[in-house]
């Protein structure tokens, strides 16, 4: 008798938003394996039409409650491009510092709260605290640092208020930057604790490889492990594609199993995110980040999607170490109070591209002569990963289906979680009964 499997996961737990997994194996034959995104579209591209260019970054920050800084930065860059505004080097550095806070915030959230329970065989971080108390305390401490770092640079933890076209409405004081630097230096020890904990359970990371295309920003001048500047790079091609040509990279198309569009470039799918950035730029990581990668067995060319979580931890080390250097640079030059730069309003089109924690993000806007938005096009990283998740599942299932229903289910759940998908937002009311 052949293998029989019937798996319906509605919805995948411990991811941000709702996605489904459907598997049907009958008589040893795979009848169905599907990764589905059933959520309703949210129409942000329609919402911003008619809005003034100065309001765009505030509106689109609401696309996400986790990577809101990233969305605001991408939008601000696009608006500035359209209006011909160039920001000062100080603004540029402070924005990157702000962006790094969100990388740490999002990555630690995923590593500690969403992925770690799988490594320890518990359903969530709540029971994990009983068995790995110090590890969870460390995660909470790092998450708090990242939140407060965002507060300082962005004006609040989520949905930044300091970002405007041309600059920043508020900058930290030099003393606040010195305090932040001190906390970041202290965080290095915490990060190494997390590395040790993850290293102790690394054998639970499934060994699965599927070569695919990895797409991310690459910055050559100066060579940088970039989240913010650069052009579009891929492990499947040598040259770089200007961000203005992002449509020729994403090649979005509609899939009947998803309300989100899928993407493909040189192959029938590609991956974005920490592992993609690592595979394109690993040689440019900070020394500590390189050390973390070596300790956790992550090497350039890795095509195990489960290792994306490890790549995120490597990037945590990178952003912390690099931020310390950036703060030193700012303090050496001395902070100047600058007014946001402006230019005469003009019609135009602009593209902004940054790396969200989950991968490369494109924002494109077109404005009329009054500075009102007439068209918007946004392509988010999780959308770019959907086809790759599907292809991974198709390749993985034949390798593991003999392991039984529960093991297959768990490995598919872990696969989706490894991509750290960010699918939507929901409400948070409590529900109780009185004892």
């Amino acid at each position: 008798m052949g293998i029989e499997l019937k798996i319906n996961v509605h919805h995948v737990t411990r991811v941000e938003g709702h996605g489904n997994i459907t598997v049907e194996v009958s008589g040893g034959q795979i009848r169905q394996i599907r990764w589905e995104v059933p959520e309703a579209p949210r129409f942000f591209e329609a919402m911003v039409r008619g809005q003034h260019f100065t309001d765009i970054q505030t509106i689109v920050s609401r696309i996400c409650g986790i990577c809101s800084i990233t969305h605001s930065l991408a939008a601000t860059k696009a608006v500035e491009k359209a209006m011909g505004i160039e920001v000062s080097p100080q603004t540029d550095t402070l924005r990157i510092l702000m962006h790094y806070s969100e990388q740490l915030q999002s990555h630690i959230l995923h590593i500690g709260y969403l992925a770690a329970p799988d490594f320890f065989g518990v359903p969530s971080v709540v029971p994990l605290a009983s068995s790995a108390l110090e590890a969870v305390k460390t995660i909470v401490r790092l998450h708090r640092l990242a939140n407060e770092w965002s507060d300082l640079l962005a004006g609040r933890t989520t949905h930044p208020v300091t970002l405007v076209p041309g600059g920043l409405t508020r900058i930290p004081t030099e003393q606040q930057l010195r305090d932040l630097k001190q906390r970041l230096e202290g965080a290095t020890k915490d990060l190494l604790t997390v590395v040790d904990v993850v290293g102790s359970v690394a054998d639970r990371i499934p060994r699965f490889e599927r070569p695919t295309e990895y797409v991310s920003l690459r910055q050559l001048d100066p060579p940088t492990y970039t989240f913010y500047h650069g052009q579009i790079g891929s492990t499947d091609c040598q040259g770089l594609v200007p961000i203005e040509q992002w449509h020729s990279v994403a090649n979005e198309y509609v899939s009947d199993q998803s309300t989100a569009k899928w993407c493909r470039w040189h192959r029938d799918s590609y991956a974005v995110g920490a592992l993609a950035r690592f595979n394109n730029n690993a040689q440019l990581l900070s020394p500590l980040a390189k050390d973390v990668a070596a300790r956790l067995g992550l090497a350039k060319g890795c095509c195990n999607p489960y290792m994306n979580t490890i790549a995120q931890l490597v990037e945590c080390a990178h952003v912390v170490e690099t931020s310390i250097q950036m703060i030193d640079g700012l303090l050496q030059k001395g902070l100047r109070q600058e007014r946001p730069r402006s230019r005469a309003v003009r019609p135009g089109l602009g593209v902004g591209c940054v790396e969200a924690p989950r991968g490369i993000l494109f924002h494109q806007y077109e404005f009329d002569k009054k500075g009102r938005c007439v068209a918007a096009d946004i392509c988010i990283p999780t959308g770019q990963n959907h086809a790759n998740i599907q292809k991974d599942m198709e390749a993985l299932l034949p390798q593991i289906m003999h392991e039984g229903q529960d093991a297959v289910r768990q490995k598919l759940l872990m696969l989706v979680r490894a991509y750290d998908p960010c699918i939507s937002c929901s409400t948070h009311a409590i529900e109780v009964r009185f004892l």
Partner: protein
Amino acid sequence: MRPPVVVIGLGHRWMGDEGIGPAIVERLGQVPLANDLAEYVDLGTRGLALLHVIDGRQKAVIIDCALMGLSPGQMRRFTLDQVAGTKVLSGVSDHQADLLGLLTLAKTLGQLPKEVVIFGIQPRLVGPGMHISEDLMARIDYYLETIMAELGQPVC
């Protein structure tokens, strides 16, 4: 140095009565308190950050929209040992956080304030929109007075 008491409003202000916690905290923040007794925090939907804002406090007062089987607008004060959570969650994330689960986590971590008081307010409608129902708005002064009394402050 953090004030010993934190008053936290939880909820999504774009989801109707779900936003009653932040709405109350916003109003409370306009009333000066003696001796920097308390800090008011609109935590919005950042559930996980609850762990950070209650750490190191003596008392946390949390105001949240709560499905308690009461009439819309009714407010009830309770402590952790007086309720059991009935919310079915698929995990803990920034999109799905359960207040009671997070407080349990804080307790395990040794970061729970000595005293945690929750004011639950039964909603009329939780759904898209920034409007809070009349059932709740009609009682807003009562909510404020009750919470000020909880803080040992004169009724405003």
